[in-house]
């Protein structure tokens, strides 16, 4: 029972936030949650699947563009129609890119995903689709309406926040179930010892492709809400610098956990906010911090979090459950 106390308290705090904090912070936390969804989705591929992908920003941005393209002029788009469409587009892109990239391993995989991600970037940057390099506006936030009656309008920051929070919790739930399922164990087995997993008869290519597609669809979910929040999409949303930044979030939070990357996202976005406010050269500071984090991790510790606090935090149960599959677990 105690295992449920901390997550429940955190969720209660998250629900209470819009009633206690100014709108600016509600929007800021919404943004951090969206990046958290993206980071957790990416970690299904990176941490659980062992696939270091540098094209998740492309799935993220693609979904955002789908919302921009499907939004009817100055009217609000229907969330129930456009969200599935955006996630499906991201999933299809992940299926095609994944099917090709998974023919390779390791460092090749990184380079191939980076290149295909940039292909999508150039597709939106160089061609006239949705404004080219200038980007496009999402003039009205999506809504859920039945027969002209608005059930949910994302234009209110608090409503937007609650919807994002709901999807955040849903993402955690889905990912936790996936990682704990036989599918998740097989995926982890393929990551830890590909040859052994293959000789045990696991269809490794298919396992990894499925994980990659789900991961891409979750990135699409995040991209949809990012586009809705800012009301604007630009090719930079698809660029690989964002992919790499999200990888940093994953590394900060911990590769083997489900919710770790969410913490990583909150830490890094909070850090960026502080740096932007305090120095003009915030990218220099961020670069140095990224280098410092990586160098600190090279000490042989895989996770930064336990390093800072001395021990593995055992509050959220999902994190402990997501630890690497025990030897012989798959036999």
């Amino acid at each position, binding site marked *: 029972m105690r295992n449920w106390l901390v997550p429940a308290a955190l969720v209660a705090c998250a629900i209470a936030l819009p009633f206690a904090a100014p709108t600016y912070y509600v929007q800021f936390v919404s943004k951090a949650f969206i990046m958290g969804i993206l980071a957790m989705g990416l970690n299904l591929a990176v941490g659980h699947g062992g696939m270091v992908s540098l094209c998740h920003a492309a799935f993220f941005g693609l979904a955002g563009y789908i919302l921009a393209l499907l939004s009817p002029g100055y009217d609000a788009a229907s969330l129930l129609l456009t969200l599935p469409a955006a996630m499906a587009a991201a999933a299809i892109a992940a299926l095609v890119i994944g099917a090709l990239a998974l023919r390779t391993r390791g460092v090749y995989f990184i380079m191939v995903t980076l290149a295909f991600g940039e292909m999508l970037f150039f597709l939106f940057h160089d061609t006239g689709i949705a404004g080219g390099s200038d980007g496009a506006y999402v003039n009205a936030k999506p809504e859920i309406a039945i027969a002209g009656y608005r059930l949910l309008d994302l234009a209110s920051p608090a409503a937007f926040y609650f919807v994002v929070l709901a999807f955040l919790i849903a993402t955690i739930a889905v990912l936790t179930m996936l990682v704990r399922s036989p599918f998740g164990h097989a995926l982890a087995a393929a990551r830890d010892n590909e040859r052994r997993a293959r000789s045990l008869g696991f269809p490794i290519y298919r396992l990894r492709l499925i994980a990659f597609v789900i991961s891409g669809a979750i990135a699409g979910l995040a991209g949809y809400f990012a586009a809705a929040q800012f009301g604007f999409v630009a090719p930079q949303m698809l660029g690989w610098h964002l992919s790499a*930044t999200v990888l940093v979030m994953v590394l900060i939070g911990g590769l083997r956990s489900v919710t770790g990357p969410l913490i990583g996202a909150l830490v890094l976005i909070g850090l960026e906010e502080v740096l932007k406010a305090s120095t003009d050269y915030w990218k220099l500071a961020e670069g140095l911090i990224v280098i410092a984090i990586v160098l600190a991790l090279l000490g042989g510790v895989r996770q930064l979090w336990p390093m800072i606090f001395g021990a593995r935090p055992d509050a959220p149960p999902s994190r402990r459950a997501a630890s690497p599959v025990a030897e012989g677990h798959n036999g």
Partner: protein
Amino acid sequence: MDLVTFGVQLLNAVQYGMVLFLVASGLTLVFGILGVINLAHGAFYMLGAYLAYWIAAYTGSFWIAMVAGVAIAFVVGLVLESVFIRRLYGRDHLVQVLLSFGLILVIDEVREILFGKDVHSVAPPAWLAGSIQLTDNLSYPVYRLAICGFCMIVAALIFLVITRTKIGMIVRAGAENREMTRVLGIRFDVVNRYVFAVGIALAALGGIVIAPISTVFPGMGDGMLILSFVVVVLGGIGSVAGAAVGALLIGLTDTFGKVFFPSVSSILIYVLMAMVLLWRPNGILGRREV
């Protein structure tokens, strides 16, 4: 397309491919010997172009800019290897990716502090500044021809060093079987340092020679990084000959793609990459499982 236009486009393709080769060979060498994937490679290409602009503006000589730019990049490479890159040997690709990403952020910002974010141009050396009249209304810049020639000389030098010298032998042996080479008494800490510095210098050299025909702008490193990756994926990682093949293929695809299919030219090279991945996932000249 008449023969002269075709010839001009072919020259453009080869010239583009040769510059790509310079940059990509540095990347593939560093990966082949050090086993490190360096995302900051494109940043050094950009840095080379800015150094060329900066030094040429001060001294008025492109040649001084070239020599000094390469020397600076080489020294920066030596320093970076001994401070950061050394720690990445044998590590997860993920930490290599992120450390070099951190380096990109730092280099980009240092560039902005030193040179600003304006777009610059660099004048080619005076005696290479003219053009050759081909037909009544078609001429070809001498500098582009000079790039072709220069890059071919550098490429020949790289091949000679790798295939004919003792240093090349050590490099090839290291790429083949690092442990065995170490056991034979080769000091890999030293070899690694110089290979990394040479790789960085090659990237900077690419940026320097391209500066007079392209503009010098902040985002130029990113585009080059992606192209170098595609070259390496096409040719096979760690293989310098593969890099040459991949670079020429991309030069041809991109140049003639722009002529024949202008609307989709920007994604043609990725289609090429997808086809090679279906055909030979380890690259055209690649044989190792990576």
